[in-house]
């Protein structure tokens, strides 16, 4: 009931009505302001348009708040009322069962094609539930309309020659912007809090130190939770990735900003940035299908060389090296794009100064431009590292599952992110140490990348202050 009006969903209709009300309120407010000014709008403290905006704001804001409150609490209100009307026998069931019973009724009641079940009590309850929902909707809409009307008249009553409408409207907009920012921040805090909460539950079962410093990881059987092999795998792969991404990214940034002609730059830069847009799963199967076999074949070949002991390299079908190489390619644009920005931000006057001293182009780049851009370049590298540490898809597909500590990059290694995926997919019970360990790993990952990002941001900020 009251879900649709004709074929239109009520929510959309309501939205249209509110928008229309806002328009009307705007014109009424503006007309009134023009009337107050009697042709001398410069006499008004604020432009007539702002008076219009103010009345429109005063009209829809209260209605919007009421509808928002209904959306958040409407259902629990209906359920509470419904529960209180149920026969004593059912109410005595206890919270959990009562809740499940109401769930079943509400599910039945809100189904479009619901037909009578034959259970008289159930059907009656279901009808009653539908009525209550409809009633609550009507009540909410009525309240919203009343609030809108009240707001409209309140808004009009405030208008006068020296009413500071613009300031009020700006306050309103500022508040709206603040709300948006607050939502983003609150979400982040929520994520961190839930991670922390679950991690703490894990640490109440497993000692923090044996988690952080233990060298045996065997979470699937629930026995060992020493995360060092995972940390090792994560950092080894990130290191291999940086070995690829740092020089290539940096040199392409230098080429792009100092040597490339504008034409070449306008072609190459977008192509490089395209790399950042390729879905990581595509990189993942590139690593698995293409790079990993090559790594394995090369390792086997090296093993076959004279003077190399048999089995010197592990030559596994998935390997840290394959994942690291491809991940390196993936983060090249992170390094190059950011470094390119910082190198471009080095003032031209510095280059001119060096040229005027008789420095050659390469001397200028090496001795003046790069030292000036260094802090920003370091920040770019740090951001790339934190990206590499958090990367999941490539390592899930190409790095392997075995938790081991070995410097041999052709061995299969596992990482924090791979283990989180492994622990949380498939059948999981959310109460075992095994599952909870995933949250502890997630928390560690979060902290590490946070630290990298914070350092990078600080470095960038310091650098900005120097040149602006």
């Amino acid at each position: 009931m009251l879900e649709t009006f004709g074929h239109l969903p009520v929510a959309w209709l309501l939205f249209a009505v509110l928008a229309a009300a806002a328009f009307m309120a705007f014109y009424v407010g503006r007309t009134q302001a023009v009337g107050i000014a009697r042709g001398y709008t410069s006499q008004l403290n604020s432009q007539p348009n702002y008076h219009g905006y103010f009345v429109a704001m005063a009209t829809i804001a209260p209605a919007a708040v009421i509808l928002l409150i209904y959306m958040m609490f409407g259902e629990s209100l209906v359920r509470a009322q419904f529960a209180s009307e149920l026969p004593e026998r059912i109410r005595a069931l206890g919270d959990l069962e009562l809740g499940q019973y109401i769930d079943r009724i509400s599910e039945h009641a809100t189904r479009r094609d619901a037909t009578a079940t034959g259970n008289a009590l159930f059907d009656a309850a279901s009808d009653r539930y539908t009525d209550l929902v409809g009633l609550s909707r009507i009540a909410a809409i009525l309240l919203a309309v009343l609030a809108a009307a009240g707001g409209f008249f309140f808004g009009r009553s405030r208008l006068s020659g020296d009413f500071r409408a613009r300031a009020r409207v700006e306050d309103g907009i500022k508040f709206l912007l603040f709300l948006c920012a607050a939502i983003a921040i609150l979400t982040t805090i929520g994520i961190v809090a839930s991670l922390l909460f679950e991690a703490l539950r894990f640490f109440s079962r497993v000692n923090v130190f044996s988690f952080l410093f233990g060298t045996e990881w065997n979470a699937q059987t629930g026995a060992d939770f020493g995360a060092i092999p995972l940390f090792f795998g994560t950092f080894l792969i990130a290191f291999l990735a940086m070995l690829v991404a740092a020089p290539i990214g940096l040199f392409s940034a230098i080429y792009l900003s100092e040597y490339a002609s504008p034409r070449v730059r306008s072609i190459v830069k977008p192509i490089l940035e395209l790399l950042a847009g390729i879905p990581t799963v595509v990189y993942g199967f590139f690593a698995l299908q293409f790079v990993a076999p090559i790594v394995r074949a090369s390792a086997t070949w090296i093993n076959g060389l004279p003077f190399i002991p048999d089995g010197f390299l592990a030559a596994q079908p998935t390997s840290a090296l394959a994942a690291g190489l491809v991940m390196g390619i993936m983060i090249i644009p992170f390094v190059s794009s950011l470094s390119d920005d910082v190198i471009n931000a080095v003032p031209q006057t510095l280059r001119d100064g060096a040229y005027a001293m008789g420095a050659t182009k390469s001397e200028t780049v090496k001795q003046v431009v790069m030292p000036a851009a260094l802090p920003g370049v370091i920040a770019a590298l740090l951001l790339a590292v934190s990206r590499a540490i958090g990367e999941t898809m490539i390592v899930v597909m190409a790095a392997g599952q075995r938790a081991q500590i070995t410097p041999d990059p052709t061995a299969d290694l596992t990482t924090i992110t791979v283990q989180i995926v492994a622990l949380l997919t498939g059948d999981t019970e959310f109460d075992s140490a095994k599952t909870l360990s995933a949250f502890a790993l997630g928390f560690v990952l979060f902290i590490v990348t946070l630290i990298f990002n914070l350092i990078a941001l600080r470095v960038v900020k310091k650098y900005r202050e120097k040149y602006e």
Partner: protein
Amino acid sequence: MDGNMEHFTQTKSSARADAASAPIKVDCQNIDVYYGDKQAIEDISLQIEDRSVTAFIGPSGCGKSTFLRCMNRMNDTIESAKVTGKIFMDGANINDPSIDPVLLRSRVGMVFQKPNPFPKSIYDNIAYGPRIHGLASGKAEMDEVVENSLRKAGLWEEVKDRLPAPGTSLSGGQQQRLCIARAIAVSPEVILMDEPCSALDPIATAKIEELIDELRERYCIVIVTHSMQQAARVSQKTAFFHLGKLIEYGDTERIFTNPEHGRTQDYITGRFG
């Protein structure tokens, strides 16, 4: 228009007459500069004396900086810029393709409008030029070069205790003198200065002007300035540019007391520009 042209040629010949007294360091002949299709300098010929200060004045956008940059081929670093004509420095045409601009720039120092110390220590800022040109062998010799340059730039007393501090930690006026010291360190023959005092307060400006006056004894100095007083105070010769053309060139004293050209008169008395 005709009258202008007549006047212009007349001025040019008188400029030569003015300049007859001292040895010529830089002899520019028929210089044209284009930025893409736009001509910024039109057929300028001008001779600059050694061991004196020559001031370039003229309204904004008339091509002073562009012309100045011809003399150390800094226009080469601007992709769209194209320079034609000949500039003789000690008898050799620096626009000749066989001349290496990198070597040329070690002979012609430049100081910019905004102080631009390198992101290095005060010491390394000065040592930079001598190092890349191999002008000092060994630490002791380099120390001497650094001290001498800083002394000549009148900065030694202020910074001798903080040579390892970054060049950017100095005040604006000190930074500009650091840039002058940096230019001096490679023992150039010519020093070009593009509005070296426009970012400085009167006291720092006075110091730089004093310094320019001292440097005149050893170097050929060309200075671009928007301040008539500054041009009158520090220079021996003044060249007035307008819309890419050299309107009048001669002894500073004469230009400021008795300009031959109406436009020069208007500009120095502040009636346009």
